[in-house]
């Protein structure tokens, strides 16, 4: 009886390890950028996990108050293949739902401080990429992001973003790209595999 209960909980593919009980692990060594980078690419991603999770702490060097991070899948730069919808909240304000959109840069995942923002302020985001290795579903992304772009409460931003890549292909590479600038040195970028 106990074995039956456990088999229900641990209903994973024992051959691939997907769905196994266990901790999430790094899919690549953590990166703390030694210099500015125009893009950050995780290539040759293992297909052994069920899901991926990307964690980013960053800031842009663009000559502006704010910049935007996108994730591109397998190098696909076709605008029609991406979509996202964003709920944006600021301190003291009511959340605004921005219209669905698309970009040839990929799926929007974060808003980050840039050159004219408060010094040493960075944004963080956690991006989940679901069932990335199987070829049944079009790929889905969900991101939680917060950023402090200035001293006023209205410059404290939180975004909840859902989106995806309209392809059933297995994800083998992810490229992070900013709308206008480069990722500042000391950016922390990590890719995890979820069993």
């Amino acid at each position, binding site marked *: 009886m106990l074995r039956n209960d456990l088999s229900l909980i641990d209903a994973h593919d024992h051959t691939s390890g997907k769905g196994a009980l266990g901790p999430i692990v790094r*899919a*690549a*060594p953590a*990166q703390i*950028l030694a*210099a*500015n*980078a*125009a*893009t*950050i*690419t*995780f*290539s*040759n*991603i*293992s297909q052994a996990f069920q899901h991926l999770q990307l964690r980013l702490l960053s800031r842009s060097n*663009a*000559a*502006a108050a*704010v910049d*935007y991070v996108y994730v591109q899948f397998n190098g696909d730069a076709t605008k029609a293949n991406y979509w996202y919808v964003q709920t*944006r909240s600021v301190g003291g*304000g*009511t959340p*605004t*739902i*921005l*219209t669905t959109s698309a970009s040839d840069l990929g799926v929007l995942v974060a*808003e980050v401080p840039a050159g004219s923002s408060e010094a040493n302020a960075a944004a963080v985001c956690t991006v989940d990429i679901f069932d990335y290795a199987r070829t049944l579903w079009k790929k889905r992304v969900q991101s939680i992001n917060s950023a402090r772009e200035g001293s006023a409460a209205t410059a404290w931003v939180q975004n909840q973003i859902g989106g995806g890549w309209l392809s059933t292909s297995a994800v083998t590479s992810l490229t992070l790209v900013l*709308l*206008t*600038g*480069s990722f500042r040195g000391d950016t922390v970028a990590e*890719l995890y595999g979820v069993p």
Partner: protein
Amino acid sequence: MDQKLVIDCQTGQASWLDLNADEQAALLARQGQPDPFAAAIAAAEQRKADLDALLAQFRVKTDVQAVVGKQPS
């Protein structure tokens, strides 16, 4: 020349590479372009302000009608 970082998840090796000509041109083209979200954010905030103003008018109307004993129309 700007650089990009590529991390090979199989070997764990991180490589700094120069952008190729197309990538460099795309980066330069993106720099300095207006914030594409500014208009959408401003429009959303204006819609909220309009709704708040409408709600405030409704509240005044129902308050007055309550005083004179009439039902809101």
